[in-house]
């Protein structure tokens, strides 16, 4: 079955350009990229680099001016496919308060399914499943405003999950959370990626989150400036910093140590790796 092929493209963007009405510059400029089945991609970039705009091009919230975006093989410019595309590409936004529609958790999870006309009996099954996966089952009957930020984002993820998406896009979904909420969300997302084989695209400011991805794309001025594994991208410390971003602390430290004449691997990402490297020295 073609569906099962490991190299299947979930998102395929070719020379995509998008400009906001009345804007002078292209928000996204000639971007080509792909996300394969089961892949975990992080898109980095400072504010206004076009990373959020790119994300909204994936699920036809925006339609490219030129170039094409294929979501699971469906062209986002095809009006007929819009809802199928959005069902396949779930999106979680930044502000947890501004994306929950209903006054009860389980009803919010049901929102997307209700929109798609899924029969009530099946909605019930699917929201119970989704809430269980994000560990929010016991909050099913609670009011959203009683939950913490991390819990709200998990509800939002459940709402997306209930639609059985092939890709989940998280548009700075951890930006407004405290460290424990951030960890909750990231753990959930990694679990979905690993266990359910859902492709994940995270858009983030946090280097530590990007470091856990399979691939990283660094954007600046609407263009892709760097791309590759986190190890490869972050080891280019000078370029990353020149794009207004930081590198993970240990990568920065390795960089400084190398400058000081100590022979250490330039692509250290975590504390554990750094310990290993330092021990190797002596």
């Amino acid at each position, binding site marked *: 079955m073609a569906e099962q092929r490991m190299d299947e493209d979930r998102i395929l963007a070719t020379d995509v350009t998008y400009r906001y009405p009345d804007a002078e510059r292209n928000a996204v400029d000639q971007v080509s990229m792909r996300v394969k089945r089961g892949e975990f991609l992080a898109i980095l970039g400072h504010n206004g680099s076009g990373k959020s705009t790119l994300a*909204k091009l994936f699920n036809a919230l925006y339609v490219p001016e030129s170039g094409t975006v294929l979501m699971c093989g469906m062209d986002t410019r095809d009006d007929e496919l819009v*809802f199928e595309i959005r069902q396949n590409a*779930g999106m979680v*936004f930044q502000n947890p308060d*501004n994306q929950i529609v*209903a006054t009860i958790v389980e009803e919010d999870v049901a929102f997307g399914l*209700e*929109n798609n006309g899924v029969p009530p009996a099946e909605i019930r099954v699917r929201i119970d499943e989704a809430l269980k996966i994000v560990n929010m089952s016991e909050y099913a009957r609670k009011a959203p*405003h*009683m939950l913490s930020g991390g819990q709200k984002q998990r509800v939002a993820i459940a709402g997306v999950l209930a639609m059985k998406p092939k890709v989940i896009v998280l548009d700075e979904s951890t930006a407004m959370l405290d460290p424990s909420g951030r960890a909750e969300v990231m753990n959930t997302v990694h679990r979905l990626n690993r266990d359910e084989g859902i492709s994940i695209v995270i858009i983030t400011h946090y280097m530590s989150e990007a470091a856990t991805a399979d691939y990283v794309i660094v954007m600046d001025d609407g263009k892709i400036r760097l791309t590759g594994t986190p190890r490869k991208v972050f080891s280019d410390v000078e370029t990353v910093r020149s794009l207004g971003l930081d590198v993970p602390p240990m990568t920065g430290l390795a960089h400084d140590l190398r400058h000081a004449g100590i022979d250490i691997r330039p692509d250290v990402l975590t504390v554990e790796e750094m310990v290993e490297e330092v021990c190797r020295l002596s």
Partner: protein
Amino acid sequence: MLNDITLGQYFPGTSPIHRMDPRMKLILTIIYIVGVFLVKSFAGYAVAFLFLYLIVRIAEIPFKYLIKGVKPLRFIIIFTFLLNLFFLTGETPLLDIGPVHLTREALFNAVYFSLRLVFLVMGTSVLTLTTSPVQLTDALERLLHPLQRFHFPAHELAMMMTIALRFIPTLLDETDKIQKAQMARGADFESGNLIQRAKAMIPLLVPLFVSSFRRANDLAMAMEARCYRGGDHRTRLRELRYTRLDAVAAVVMCGFIVVIILEGRIFG
């Protein structure tokens, strides 16, 4: 402080009244209102009182909650009472001092109309006490659904109500935050006369409005991303179903109306 606000005055429970279909409760409440208007005498009010008392007992809500519901309207009720008392004319004078003329008929009408208000409020309180705002919204949407054929925006109306309910706590929270932030910068919300205090609200309301628009924009985007496309072909997680309970309730309400009509014939 703002976290434990309850929406509306819903009193959670599992009584038969709570378990009734919200649509039926809404319809029966409307019938009850008509019934109250049909009451012609104090005997009728006595029947209505017994009826209400019975329902409240079945619903397992403390009767004082109904009294509480009347409280915000006490000025209107007192006003109605006084207006009727002093401005109605009648044939049997009770009191005649200077410009004040009181008649028996005026006194009767004053009490009669005030009681009508009290019973209207108490009856509708039973509805809002036993039905959550979410259920009410659901019921409204489904009852108004047939009007959609005439381009009445039933789904949109219900959606707006749901979103409003959802955002009340969020916006209260935000108001609290802004208020504290402005107070930290020396804003004074508590002193001065009415006009000064109204003016002091501007630095509170402007940021609140701005952020509400941003929220609306975000929410619209999030709803679109989750395939929202209006009310057509939409299914619902919770289906409403009429049960035996609703049939029984309808019969009981019919009985009440019949008694009230008979009472009108006999005493009216």
